[in-house]
Structures are given as structure tokens and as C-alpha cells.
């Protein structure tokens, strides 16, 4: 039984390439397109730069009212004002310390519990359901409870950030560990690796891409936790700056805070990319042969 053939029917349409008289043509390129790094970098930067230019143009031509969005000049002078008194550095440092401690605690717990749940059936049975329920509780809903437990001091702030950072870490590590190639794990078991040694030398290195992805998300969620934490009982920190701007209705400070957060997000992203390159050198070496 021959499937009788209508020319071109059922063919994936390809872009026409230069043809010859006998109907032959150069194979259309199906591989990956690679751009030169300089062009790639320029493309990446182009959209943020265009937004900046639009902002500057809108403000200087008077099309954007300073009450709606402070212009670049006003924001720069606000930045200079804060920097000259040394407040900016203090604020950023205070916030960075809180985030670092909170992320360390939250991500540490998330990593351990995620690995336990992903690695052992017993761990999954004991831990997973509870943590899925916990994950459904927005961490901001815990603010009143945490204040009644810890007061509004540093402990409260770090605990809130830790809780915020915990959830994505747990979820991604659990998925990452579950996604490790079972055949490789079977083989490693056959070579006598068990328990913690199996986890440390086979499973966690293989799940490292997921762990780094989790770290990236945890860090950005922890910035949200930071604002929430620093709105109460803080005298320094970027979140405190947001509160101040709100109280005094200082549009230039509001915009400055947004820019600081954007910059922090960029720095976090760059740091994680660097870490990915160092910690997972085998990626990007995959060839499709």
C-alpha cells in the first residue's frame, strides 16, 4: 500500500532559498542563530536605554508632570542629597545585611527540606504536603503574627525575608532533585553510593541548575519581603526610604527607590549568571551531534 504522493503536500513549509534549474537549493539553515556578543549586548541594553531616553525627553519637554513622575534631574539631585549625607550607603548596607541573613536562613532551610523531600519517599510524605499548604499562605499574611512573636526589631525583619525566600527554594530544589536522571542515580547506587553521599556527589550537582534558578527567584522575592519588613519599626533601609517617600509625598524619592530596586535586580541577575558559569561549567558545552 503506497501512500500516493501529491507533491509538496504534507511538507513543512520552508523559506525559499536560492534554487537551481533542476530544483535543487541550498539547505535552509535550521541550526541555532548566533549573534556576536557585542551585538547581543547592544540589543539587551537597547530597551532599558530607550525607556530612559523617553523618560528624560518626556520630563524635559514638560509632557510628564513632575507630580506624576519626577524627572531625571530631580531624581539625580535626590540621589546626590542622600549620598552626601552618607544615608544612602547606610540604607543600602542595612538592607543588604537583612536580605543576606534572611536569604541564608530561608534558602538554607528550603535547600535542605527540598532535597529531603525530593530524595526520599519518607521525606516527601512527611514534609511535602505541609509545605505545599504553607506555600499557599502569602508571607505577608504572616506579618501580624510575626510582630506579636518577635516585635518589630531585626528578628522580625530577617524572619519575614527568610520565609519569603524559603518557598521558591523548596519548590525548585524539590522539582530539580526529582528531575535528576533516574538511570544515573540507579548506576550510582550500583557503585555503592547511598544516602548523604549519593545526594552530595550525584543528585545535588545534577540539580544545581534548578538550585541556581531557585536562588534567583528567592532573591527577587526577598526584595518584596524587605519592603514589607522595613515599613515597620525601621529607621534605615531602602524599604524605610519607600515609606518616607510615601509619607512626605516625595515623588523624586519614590522614583529613586524604584531605580535602586531595578539596579539591585540587575546586580542580582549578573551575580547569579556569573555563579552559574562558575558552578555549572558543563552547561553550554552540549553539542547536538
Amino acid at each position, binding site marked *: 500500500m*503506497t*501512500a500516493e504522493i501529491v507533491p509538496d503536500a*504534507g511538507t*513543512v513549509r520552508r523559506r525559499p532559498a536560492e534554487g537551481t534549474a*533542476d530544483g535543487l537549493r541550498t*539547505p535552509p539553515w*535550521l541550526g541555532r542563530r548566533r549573534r556576536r556578543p557585542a551585538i547581543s549586548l547592544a540589543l539587551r541594553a537597547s530597551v532599558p536605554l530607550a525607556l530612559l531616553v523617553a523618560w528624560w525627553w518626556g520630563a524635559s519637554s514638560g509632557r510628564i508632570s513632575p507630580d506624576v513622575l519626577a524627572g531625571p534631574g530631580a531624581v539625580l539631585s535626590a540621589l546626590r542629597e542622600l549620598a552626601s549625607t552618607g544615608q544612602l550607603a547606610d540604607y543600602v548596607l542595612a538592607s543588604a545585611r537583612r536580605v543576606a541573613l534572611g536569604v541564608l536562613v530561608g534558602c538554607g532551610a528550603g535547600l535542605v527540606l527540598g532535597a529531603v523531600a525530593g530524595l526520599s519517599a519518607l521525606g516527601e510524605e512527611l514534609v511535602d504536603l505541609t509545605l505545599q499548604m504553607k506555600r499557599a499562605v502569602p508571607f505577608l499574611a504572616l506579618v501580624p503574627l510575626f510582630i506579636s512573636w518577635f516585635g518589630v526589631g531585626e528578628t522580625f525583619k530577617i524572619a519575614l525575608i527568610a520565609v519569603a525566600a524559603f518557598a521558591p527554594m523548596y519548590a525548585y530544589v524539590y522539582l530539580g532533585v526529582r528531575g535528576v536522571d533516574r538511570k544515573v542515580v540507579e548506576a550510582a547506587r550500583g557503585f555503592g553510593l547511598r544516602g548523604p553521599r549519593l545526594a552530595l556527589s550525584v543528585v545535588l550537582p545534577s540539580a544545581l541548575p534548578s538550585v541556581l534558578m531557585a536562588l534567583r527567584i528567592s532573591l527577587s522575592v526577598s526584595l518584596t519581603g524587605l519592603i514589607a519588613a522595613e515599613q515597620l519599626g525601621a529607621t534605615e533601609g531602602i524599604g524605610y526610604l519607600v515609606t518616607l517617600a510615601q509619607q512626605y509625598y516625595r515623588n523624586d524619592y519614590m522614583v529613586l527607590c524604584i531605580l535602586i530596586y531595578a539596579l539591585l535586580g540587575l546586580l542580582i541577575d549578573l551575580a547569579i549568571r556569573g555563579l552559574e558559569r562558575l558552578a555549572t561549567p558543563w552547561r553550554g558545552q552540549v553539542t*547536538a551531534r
Partner: protein
Amino acid sequence: MSRDGHEVAVRVRGLRKAFGAKTVLDGIDLEVRRGEFFALLGPSGTGKTTLLRVLAGLERPDAGTVLTAPRVTTVYQEPRLVVARRVLANVTLGLPRSERDKGSRMLAEVGLGGRERAWPATLSGGEAQRVALARALVRDPQVLLLDEPFAALDALTRLQAQDLVAELCARHRPAVVLVTHDVDEAVRLADRVAVLDDGAFVVDRAIDLPRPRGAASTASDPAVLEHRRELLTRLGVLPASDRVTPPSGRSGLTSDRGVIA
């Protein structure tokens, strides 16, 4: 379908491709016609797969012209099925819904009629590879590229799969380019066999044997043995009459069926 018996479907002139300092293809000329089965042999790392990838548009040549007929499909060493889609959806991947019947017919042709709704993970290695073959053939290719499609199959399944490919290629008559390590496979399937070494063809010869070439009958055919002997010698493996055991260092070049004494 004799009308396309002489149609050239692959034309390569002066193809050069280097990876870093290593030139894997150095001035390759190749012409394959519709209905012709061309097999390419060579030790690992000699650029057989690179040549195939250039033909598929997955690798850019550094120099030379590469022309193919417009409809080119590939079967790889692994089935490369989408695990999240059923067998029929894999066969008709990217085709309009109206082609589903054709997909079913093609599945029947590869011996998997009725398995349309199976998931790829439930198939054996040989079955998955037959789905991959159906996926390549349902597009009615003018050029069919086979990149060691039988290498991951067990010896018995491999013989059956070879017979199936020979039968389907004779029926659909694409120009076939097969890359393989297996001399016996090349001799059984191909109209023409070339050996690639150091970036160039060192052998390019026609295999004028009657078809079908059953595994049992060709094993003792003196003409087959002669082809086999010459190709193996060219590949650096001394034939059985010259040494008792196959050399261990390059055992990838001998077939799994061992050396026929």
C-alpha cells in the same frame, strides 16, 4: 515513479568544513539521485555526521556549494520523539490535521498500525525508531538522511529494521544518505558505498547485488564477502582470513555479528 529515477537530489561540490584547527571535510564532491541509496562509512570523528548535518542545514559549510532537493528529512541515532505527544501526533508533527490519515497509513507501513494513541515512553527502542522513520517518510522526502539509525538497536531488531528501511526506500524512492559504522549494513542496504577518511572519500564504489538482500542469504554470498573484505581493509580492519580475532582497539568498525570466517 521511474520518472524521477535520474533526478539529482543532492549535489555537493568542494565542501570544506573545519572545527577549529581540525578539517573534517576537505573538498567533498557528492551526487545522489532519487531512488539511490548511498552509504557513508568511516571511523569515528571523520566527519560523516558533519556531512549529514550540512545536508540537513544544521551545520554551515566553510567552503563549497551544497544543494539539495527541497524536501529533506532525517532519522537520527536516537528516535528524538516528543515524549509529551502521542505516537500519531509525533508522526504528523507540524503537519495539518488533514494529514492524520496519511500518518496512520505510514504507521501501518512501519508495522505500527493501531498504535496511534500510544505514548512514546511505552515503546521499545525498535518501535520508537520505526515511529521516527514514519515521521521522516510521511513528509514524502526527496532526500532521506539516516544518521546511524540502527546503532542503538539490538542485533535482531537491527536486521528487521534494515529490511524495513530497504523496503520503504525502494517504495518511496527518496535519495538516501546513510551514515553508519557497520560494513555489513552498508553492503546490505546501499547501491553505493563510500569510505570517508581524513576529510575525503577514499573509496566510492557501486554495490551491484540483486535485491532483496536478506540477512541470511547475503552472509555467505561471495560478492558480498569481497565487498566486505575490501571495505574493512580500507577502514584499517584486517579481514578474517588474515587474522583470527578482530582487533580490539577499533572494534567499533566491525559488525556486532562478528567476523565471518
